C-alpha cells in the first residue's frame, strides 16, 4: 500500500512537472514538425484510444465520490452502519482507479506534445495559466481523497463531521478539475476569447465559451450515471460470485443502490443534452446542422437505441427486483402498459428525420422523409417520447418503492388520486406541446421543450412530496428478501454498464467529430493525413476495442484493490454488515 502511495505521488509530481514544462517543449517541437506519425496505428488512433480511456476512468473517479459522500451522510445521520460500509466500498473502487487515471492523463499529454506539436503550441499559448490552476486542484484533490479514504476509522465517532467534510471537499475539487479540463475541450469546439486570426484576447472568454457550461453540467450528471452503473456492475459480479446468502444479499443491495443512483441521474441527463445541443446551434448553425442533419445524422439513431436499452433495462431491473418484495404482486398489472409506453417511446426516438439519402431511396420513399413515419423524426415527437419514458421510469421506481408498504394515513385515497392526476397532467402537457410543436415556427417549438421538461420535473417533485409523508410509518407487507433476486437481473446491471460506457464513447466521437477537419473549429485547421472524420462503423469498431480494454483494466484494478483488502474486514476494519432480511428504506 505504501508503495502504491509513493508511486501515485511520484506520478502526480511527474505529470505536474511535465504539464508546466510543456509549452516550452511544444514550441521547440513545433519548429521542426507540425505532426509526427505514431508507429503502426497512427497518431489519431493513439490519441483517440488514450483520450477515451482517460475520460472513462476520470468520469468514474469523479462520479462515484458524488454519491459516495451522500450515502456516507445518510449513514452518519441515520446511524446505520450499512450505509457507511457501502460508501467506503464505493470510495475503495474509486481509489483503486485513481493512479490509472493520472497515468492515462500523463500519456495523453505525451501524445499531444510529441505527435501534435503545432496544435499543442497554439493550445498551450491560450490556456497556459489554467495549467497552474489544474495542477493545484489536482494536488488538492489527491490529498483530500487520500485523507478521506485513509482517515475513515481515524475520523469516526465525534469526528465524523470532519470526515464527511473531507468527502464534500474532494467532490468540490473534483468538480473544479472537471470544469477546467472542459474549458479546454469546449474551446476546440466553440472557440471564444480570440480574434479572427486566433490570437487570445480574453482568457475568460476562451474558458467561458458557448458550450463550456452546458458540457460541465452534462458531464457532471453523466459521471454520476456512469459511476452508478460501474459500481452496480461491480456488485453484480460479486453477487454472481457470492458463496453465501449473506454475501449475495449485501451485493444485491449494493447493486440496487448503484442502479438507483444511475437511474435518478439518467432521468435528467437528456435535458442537459438538449441544452448542450442548443448552445452548439447558437454558436454555429452550420455545426449544429452538420451534427443533427448532416453526415452525423445516423449517429443519433444509434444513440437512440442505446438510450432505449438504458431505459428499458433500468425498468426491467426494477420489475425483477419487485419479485423479491412481498406485496408487490398488486402492482404487476401495470407492467405491460409501461412496457408499451417505453417501446413506443423507443421507436419514436429511433426514427430518423434528416438523414442523407440516395436518389433511389428518395424515389422509393416519395421524398426526403418517409411519408408516414417521417413526422415522428422531428424534435417535437422525440421530446414527447423521451419525457413520457422518463415519467414511466419514475412510475416504475414509485411502484418499487411502495411495493411492501401499505399506507396507514387516512388521506391515502385522496393522496393517490392527486398523484395520478399529477401524472396525467404532466403527460397531457408533454403531449399537448409535442403536437402543438408541429404547427409553429422552429424557434417557438424549441421553447416548448422547456415547458415539457418543467412539467415532468414538477411532476417528479410533487409526486414525491406526497409519497414520502403518505408512506411514513406505513404497514409492511414483508421484508425485502435481499439476495433472492433472479441472477439474470445482474446481467441487466452489466448490460447497463456496458451500454452506458459504449454510449460515452459514441458521444465523445460526436462531440469531437462535429469539428470535422479542424483542431480548433474555424481557427486551427487539421492538415494531418488523419483529417478525415471517419464513418460510424469505423468509430464503432474503435469504441468497442477501447471499451473492452477499459473493462479489462477495471477488472484488473478491482482485483488488485481486492488483494489489499483481503483479511482487513476480519481484522476489524470495515466489517461488512448483514443485509439479508434488512428492510429497504
Amino acid at each position, binding site marked *: 500500500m505504501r508503495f502504491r502511495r509513493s508511486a501515485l505521488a511520484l506520478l502526480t509530481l511527474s505529470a505536474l512537472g511535465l504539464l508546466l514544462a510543456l509549452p516550452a517543449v511544444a514550441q521547440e517541437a513545433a519548429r521542426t*514538425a507540425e505532426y509526427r506519425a505514431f508507429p503502426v496505428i497512427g497518431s489519431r488512433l493513439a490519441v483517440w484510444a488514450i483520450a477515451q480511456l482517460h475520460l472513462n476512468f476520470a468520469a468514474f473517479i469523479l462520479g462515484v465520490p458524488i454519491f459516495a459522500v451522500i450515502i456516507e451522510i445518510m449513514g452518519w445521520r441515520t446511524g446505520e452502519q450499512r450505509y457507511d460500509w457501502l460508501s467506503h466500498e464505493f470510495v475503495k473502487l474509486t481509489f483503486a482507479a485513481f493512479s490509472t487515471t493520472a497515468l492515462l492523463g500523463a500519456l495523453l499529454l505525451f501524445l499531444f506534445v510529441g505527435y501534435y506539436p503545432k496544435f499543442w503550441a497554439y493550445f498551450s499559448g491560450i490556456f497556459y495559466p489554467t495549467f497552474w490552476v489544474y495542477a493545484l486542484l489536482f494536488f488538492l484533490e489527491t490529498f483530500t481523497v487520500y485523507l478521506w479514504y485513509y482517515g475513515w476509522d481515524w475520523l469516526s465517532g465525534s469526528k465524523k463531521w470532519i470526515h464527511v467534510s473531507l468527502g464534500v471537499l474532494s467532490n468540490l475539487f473534483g468538480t473544479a478539475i472537471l470544469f477546467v479540463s472542459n474549458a479546454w475541450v469546449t474551446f476546440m469546439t466553440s472557440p471564444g476569447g480570440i480574434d*479572427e486570426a486566433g490570437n487570445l484576447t480574453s482568457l475568460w472568454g476562451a474558458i467561458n465559451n458557448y458550450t463550456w457550461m452546458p458540457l460541465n453540467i452534462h458531464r457532471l450528471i453523466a459521471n454520476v450515471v456512469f459511476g452508478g452503473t460501474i459500481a452496480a456492475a461491480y456488485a453484480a459480479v460479486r453477487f454472481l460470485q457470492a458463496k453465501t446468502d449473506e454475501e449475495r444479499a449485501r451485493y444485491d443491495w449494493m447493486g440496487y443502490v448503484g442502479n438507483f443512483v444511475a437511474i435518478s441521474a439518467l432521468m435528467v441527463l437528456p435535458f442537459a443534452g438538449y441544452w448542450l445541443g442548443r448552445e452548439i446551434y447558437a454558436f454555429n448553425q*452550420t455545426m449544429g446542422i452538420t451534427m443533427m442533419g448532416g453526415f452525423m445524422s445516423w449517429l443519433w439513431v444509434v444513440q437512440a*437505441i442505446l438510450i432505449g436499452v438504458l431505459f428499458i433495462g433500468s425498468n426491467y431491473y426494477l420489475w425483477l427486483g419487485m419479485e423479491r418484495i412481498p406485496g408487490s404482486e398488486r402492482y404487476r398489472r401495470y407492467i405491460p402498459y409501461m412496457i408499451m409506453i417505453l417501446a413506443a417511446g423507443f421507436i419514436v426516438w429511433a426514427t430518423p428525420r434528416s438523414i442523407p439519402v440516395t436518389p433511389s431511396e428518395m424515389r422509393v420513399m416519395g421524398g426526403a422523409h418517409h411519408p408516414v413515419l417521417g413526422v415522428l423524426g422531428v424534435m417535437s415527437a422525440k421530446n414527447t417520447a423521451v419525457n413520457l419514458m422518463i415519467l414511466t421510469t419514475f412510475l416504475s421506481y414509485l411502484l418499487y418503492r411502495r411495493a411492501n408498504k401499505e399506507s396507514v394515513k387516512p388521506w391515502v385515497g385522496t393522496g393517490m388520486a392527486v398523484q395520478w392526476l399529477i401524472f396525467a397532467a404532466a403527460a397531457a402537457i408533454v403531449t399537448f406541446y409535442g403536437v402543438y410543436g408541429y404547427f409553429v415556427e422552429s424557434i417557438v417549438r424549441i421553447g416548448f421543450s422547456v415547458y415539457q421538461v418543467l412539467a415532468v420535473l414538477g411532476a417528479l417533485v410533487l409526486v414525491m412530496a406526497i409519497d414520502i409523508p403518505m408512506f411514513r410509518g406505513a404497514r409492511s407487507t414483508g421484508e425485502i428478501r435481499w439476495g433472492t433476486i433472479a441472477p439474470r437481473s445482474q446481467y441487466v446491471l452489466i448490460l447497463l454498464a456496458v451500454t452506458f460506457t459504449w454510449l460515452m464513447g459514441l458521444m465523445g466521437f460526436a462531440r469531437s467529430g462535429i469539428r*470535422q477537419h479542424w483542431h480548433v*473549429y474555424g481557427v486551427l485547421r487539421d492538415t494531418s493525413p488523419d*483529417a*478525415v472524420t471517419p464513418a460510424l*462503423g469505423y468509430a464503432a469498431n474503435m469504441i468497442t476495442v477501447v471499451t473492452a480494454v477499459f473493462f479489462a483494466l477495471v477488472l484488473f484494478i478491482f482485483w488488485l484493490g481486492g488483494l489489499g483488502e483481503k483479511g482487513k474486514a476480519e481484522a476489524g476494519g470495515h466489517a461488512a454488515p448483514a443485509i439479508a432480511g434488512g428492510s429497504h428504506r
Partner: protein
Amino acid sequence: MRVPVLGKVSVFALLVMGAYTYYANSIPQLQSKPPEELSLEGGNVTPEQLVKAGEGIFKEKGTCEVCHRIGQKGTRAPDLAGIGATAAKRKPGMTAKAYIIESLLDPGAHLVEGYPNIMPKVDRPPIGLNRSELWAVAAFLESLGGTVGVKLDDIPKTAVAAEVKLPGDPKAGQAVFMGKGGCIACHKAGAIGASPVGPDLSQIAKIQTPEYIMAKILNPAGMGTVAGYPAGVMPATLGQTLTAREYLDLVAFLLTLKGEGAAPAAKK
C-alpha cells in the same frame, strides 16, 4: 464443465458490444473529408466547367446543400430554384450577379422574409471559400434560371486567394533526389536509399506540410534540425544548384512519400 462467472460476464459484455458494433457497421457509412482547394486564377475555364465546379462546391465544401434545396422549399433556408433569374428582381437597381455575390459574402444583408439570419459568411472560416471557389459558386447559382456572366474580377479582392498548385513531376523529382540533388546520400525515401545520416523521409508527406518541405530544402538551418540528427549537415545551396523546375519536381516527389514502402513515383 463449470464456466467461471468472470468468463460468462466477459462473453456477455463482448456480445453486447458486438451487437452495437454490428449495427453501427450495417447502416450507411458516411465520412467527412477535408475539402480540397480549387484554384482557377490565371487559368482558362469555360462557363460549363465553372458551373460544374460550382455545383461541386455547393454540395461539398460550401455545405450549402445542408440548408438550401433546389426545387424544394426548405425550413431553414430559401429554395434556390430559379435564383439566377429571381435575384435580379430582389433589390431594385441591383443585378442578379451583384445580389448573389453579396448574399454569399454578407448573407444578413439580403435576408429573405420568413427565414432566420443563420447563414455564415462563406469566405470566412469554417467554410472559407477562396475567390476561385466563390466565382464558381456564383456561376452555378446564376445558371439556375439565369445566364452565367460572372467574372473572377467581380469577386472582391478581400476574399482569400486560392493556394498555388504545385506543377512538379514526382517521377522527375525522384531522379533529382537520386542524382543532382544528392539527397540519397543522407536520406532514405521508401524503397530508395538506406543512409541513416539524415532523417528517414519515407513518410514525410504524412507528417509535414508542403510549406515546410519547400522551406526546408531552401533553408535547412532556418527550419531547425530534427532531434537526434547533427545540425548543419544538410547543404544550404540547393536553392542555387537546382533549377526552378528541378526544385518543384523534387517537392512533388517528396509529397508522394506517405510511408507505403516503395517510392510511389517508381511504381507509376
